[in-house]
């Protein structure tokens, strides 16, 4: 009975408001908070050759564009076998229904021409298939036949940028240490290649050990550490001419872990003097140096923030290796790593939002990222030995060294998206370590 009475009361209450039920103020409103994260299906038909000499190039360029996009893990190429439409002319209208039918959400069409002087012109358009409209407007790049891969990378960068809203990283290079031979007698050479492993070149011979190459902000120079003199010394190498010079150093000291400042005029590095390791900066032009830390502990692996105002580095001043941030002129440093384990090789993201690092914890090595204040630490990898992270030019991908266990273990380069997805090995001809990613060319 009571139940019925309460029911009645509720009914009465609703009766008062019932008319409102029939009305809705304005349009139906919904809030969508959950979505999916999956690669976006896209299609890249072979570009249309607009001259006889462009036949193969048009196909190759399209393949590199597709490989670049697929390699990000953000996109999934739809096989050409599934295509319903064929693109036979760059200017012909797109049959959106045909591309929708195979669920291609993005479509890249293009054409390539090669003139008598060997000049290559590649033009392209990006289409949002379901919206039935072009993303951005058509664009073309001009280059040489030898540089066709760069043209393709530039097209891919544009496509990536138009779809994701952030810059690409395909027209970039990686300098690293190429390794050959057994683990206990390994020959190391400074090498450079396109980000995808193509166009490999060696910058030094294997007569001496080289370590930790680092690109300049403009990508034209490389800093690295060499044991050529028997002690670690920092050299700066001009990539185009492959000429090098030793940075100023004092006798009885050892310098290593160099890295350029964002303006490319200063080098920050570690110097061992009297058995103590501290961080210094040096003006490349004048050789004038400045000591930034002065502690009995080991301070090393410095890296500038993108605005050049701060430096993140590694120190064992607390008893274990941790990450600290200090002013670019030195002074008080604040620790930002707070988890268990040991942290090292911090690198500031080119976007300034994250710091990548190496972490050793519970018998495993990890590559991870954290906010510049140490919050939101996220470990992206786990293996026997992962170390030496370097950022892609757009701050979205991290490349690092992974070494396998055992006497036959070998170092290789790997990359991973900062979300932890798309972990994959980078193609290199042999062993490789210490990668440094260049800015976009």
């Amino acid at each position, binding site marked *: 009975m009571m139940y019925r009475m309460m029911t009645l009361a509720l009914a009465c209450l609703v009766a008062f408001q*019932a008319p409102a039920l*029939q009305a809705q*103020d304005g349009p*139906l409103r919904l809030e969508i908070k959950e*979505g999916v994260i*999956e*690669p976006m299906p896209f299609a890249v038909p072979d570009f249309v050759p607009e001259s006889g000499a462009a036949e193969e190039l048009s196909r190759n360029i399209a393949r590199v564009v597709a490989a670049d996009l697929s390699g990000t893990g953000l996109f999934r190429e739809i096989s050409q076998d599934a295509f319903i439409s064929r693109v036979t002319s760059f200017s012909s209208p797109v049959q959106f229904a045909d591309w929708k039918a195979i669920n291609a959400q993005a479509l890249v069409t293009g054409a390539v021409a090669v003139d008598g002087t060997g000049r290559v012109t590649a033009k392209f358009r990006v289409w949002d298939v379901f919206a039935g409209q072009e993303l951005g407007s058509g664009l073309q790049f001009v280059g040489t036949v030898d540089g066709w891969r760069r043209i393709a990378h530039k097209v891919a960068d544009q496509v990536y940028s138009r779809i994701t*809203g952030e810059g690409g990283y395909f027209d970039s290079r990686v300098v690293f240490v190429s390794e050959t031979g057994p683990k206990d007698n390994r020959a190391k050479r400074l090498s450079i290649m396109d980000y995808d492993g193509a166009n490999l070149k060696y910058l030094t011979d294997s007569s001496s050990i080289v370590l930790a190459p680092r690109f300049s902000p403009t990508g034209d120079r490389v800093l690295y550490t060499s044991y050529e003199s028997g002690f670690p010394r920092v050299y700066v190498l001009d990539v185009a001419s492959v000429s090098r010079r030793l940075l100023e150093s004092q006798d009885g000291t050892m310098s290593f872990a160099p890295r350029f400042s964002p303006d490319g005029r200063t080098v920050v590095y570690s110097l061992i003097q009297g058995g103590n390791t501290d961080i210094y900066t040096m003006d490349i032009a004048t050789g004038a140096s400045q000591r930034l830390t002065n502690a009995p502990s080991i301070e090393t692996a410095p890296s500038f923030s993108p605005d050049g105002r701060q430096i993140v580095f590694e120190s064992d001043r607390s008893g274990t290796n941790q990450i600290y941030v200090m002013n670019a002129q030195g002074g008080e440093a604040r620790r930002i790593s707070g988890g268990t384990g040991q942290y090292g090789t911090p690198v500031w993201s080119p976007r300034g939002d994250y710091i990548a690092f190496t972490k050793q914890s519970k018998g495993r090595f*990890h590559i991870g990222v954290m906010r510049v204040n140490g919050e939101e630490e996220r470990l992206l990898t786990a293996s026997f030995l992962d170390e030496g992270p370097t950022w892609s030019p757009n701050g979205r991908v991290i490349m690092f060294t992974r070494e396998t266990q055992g006497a036959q273990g070998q170092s290789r380069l790997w990359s991973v998206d900062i979300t*932890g997805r798309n972990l994959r090995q980078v193609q290199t001809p042999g062993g490789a370590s210490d990668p440094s990613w260049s800015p976009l060319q």
Partner: protein
Amino acid sequence: MATAMNTGQIISGAGHTVLIGWLLFGGAFNTDPIPFEVTQVTAISTEEFEALMAVERAPNAASSVTEPTPPETVEPPAPALSSQTDAETAQTPPTPAEPITPDPTPEPPAPTPRPEAQVEDTAPVLPSPPQDTAVLLPEKSLRPKPRPAPRVAPEQVAPPEPETAIDDVVREEVVADDTATTQREEAEATAPEEAATEIVTEAEEGGGPIAPTASMRPKTRPERPTQAAEAKPETQPETPKPATPKPAETDNSAVQDALAAALGQASEPAPDTAPSGPPLTGGEKDALRVAVQSCWNVGSLSTEALGTTVVVTVDMGEDSKPINGSIKMIGSSGGSAAAAGQAFEAARRAIIRCGSSGFNLPIEKYGQWKTIEMTFNPENMRIK
């Protein structure tokens, strides 16, 4: 004392019974269509109810209804909501005359003397530890172990069989059967693509004891089968859909009946400016939301675009398909114009893709969903 109280309750109950009888059958509500089997009470979500309360449109029928407020004295029955048998509750008031005395429920206090000597020490101490562990263990075991998958979606989906084609719908394979009397068209088996509820990094998937950092989100309510039984106002001239009487078999049938009667009684035509027809139920809205979110792919958005909320409007055709050209962004927050543009494109793709075959919306309520405003808030997706 107890008897006196019971007598008072009986008198009060009898009085209320008469009053309720008069209200229900005396025509106080003019409820010809009393037995309206309206949808479950759950059809009216909290937000909707709040919204209703906010609307200032005084129903005429209100005057005569003010009386029933007395039921407030009936606080105790609240827990009875879960019961199913109206019969029992209905009978209790009449019979109770004397039987109520068995209320000796107060007896229990008698055993109180138990708290004797030191029994406290032994009893409390031992039981508590085991209970703690028992509670903790299930908590861990109930949490699904995160499993890496190429697709991250609101709900986890197990990997389909190798030969199974990917499709939103699960279908069994159909093969030709010569012995069958009726032949069905051959079709391959389909199942949804494997999905995880969050990104699982290599560090997390490694055999370590690392637990997932995010808990499973509650499932959305299943789509409601019919909306015809919704409150269909007779007095509403423009609403075409007839109320399909459907026997309400739920636990809350009594409440639903009363609500249906009340709604039927008090319905008023909506102003010309407001969408016509009854509003979508929570289930209908949820179904639409789920449909759109299943196509809202934020995987290729920049981190800035992932921090941008966009508000999009879309006009719908009567075939429940979005009119693509009508989709526009009417607002954004949290990011630059460029980021908002990227976020809008992802939202537009979601609406167009999943609406290409039409959303599951009740045509009789077309006036309500002719224009839809969707807010795409990727906040939850950033932390995946």
